[in-house]
């Protein structure tokens, strides 16, 4: 069984991740997969500032992510892996990251996105890559917090 919780959340490290999900899997490390954040030292610092001292944090680019995730998996380190978007998650999983289940917990509003749930807003790209993830065989679990019910967003989108 995997001890990695993989999640799509554009807020990356924030309270829902460290507190809400922290009760389910006490992570030793959080791996943030983001080309945009890793470009800037300042943004990396902002991103990791929210981490409690007992959790290690690391930010990797998309092309470094497969190796980093599979190492956490083989070392059996309880970890969270955070992606900013379905597209990023799809690229990394397609390229061989050992992730069979993906929590979709935060895709917040921005221009040209439509609301599906109060924490899920999508555009055509998002819909395409969520479907592509499911087609890859990844189990998608749509919920912001562990105590909430899984909502089948893809079925809602196809209506």
């Amino acid at each position, binding site marked *: 069984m995997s001890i990695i919780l993989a999640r799509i959340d*554009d*807020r*990356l490290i*924030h*309270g829902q991740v460290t507190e809400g999900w922290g009760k389910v899997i006490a992570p030793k490390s959080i791996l943030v997969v983001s080309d945009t954040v890793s470009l800037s030292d300042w*943004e990396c610092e*902002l*991103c990791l*500032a*929210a*981490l409690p001292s007992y959790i290690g944090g690391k930010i990797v680019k998309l092309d470094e992510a497969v190796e980093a995730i599979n190492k956490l998996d083989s070392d059996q380190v309880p970890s969270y892996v955070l992606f900013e978007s379905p597209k990023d998650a799809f690229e990394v999983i397609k390229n061989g990251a050992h992730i069979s289940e993906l929590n979709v917990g935060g895709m*917040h*509003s*921005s*221009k040209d996105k439509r*609301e599906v749930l*109060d*924490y899920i*807003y999508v555009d055509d790209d998002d819909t395409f890559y969520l479907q592509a993830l499911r087609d890859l065989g990844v189990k998608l679990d749509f919920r912001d917090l562990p105590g909430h019910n899984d909502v089948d967003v893809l079925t809602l989108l196809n209506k």
Partner: protein
Amino acid sequence: MIQGIIIGHVDIGNALIDALHSISGMVEFIEYISNKGLSTNELAEIIKSKSQKNSSDGVMLFVDMYGGSCWRAAKMARVPNSHIVTGINLPMLLSFIQKRNTIPIDELPAIMEIDGKRAITSE
């Protein structure tokens, strides 16, 4: 006048401003932004646009939690002539309303920190 903007989770900013009004009467140049449903980038854009309306005397950005997405958005907004204070509470905001007319913007953040902490006690 120095503008105050509360940036916080869900309805906390709205509730704090309601409480301020109930204690001090109507208060101007203080408003709130909720993070509800917003990406960090979009929240940063809203902070920027609200700050531009009245930024000549400076802007104090009051954030509910250090390190959270509201804090990150406040940093990313890079508002000119602004300061960020985290861990807001009602006494801190009351102090802001009283002192912002007499104390320059650059000296206010340290005073907010002291006044906010002074209000936290235990017996």
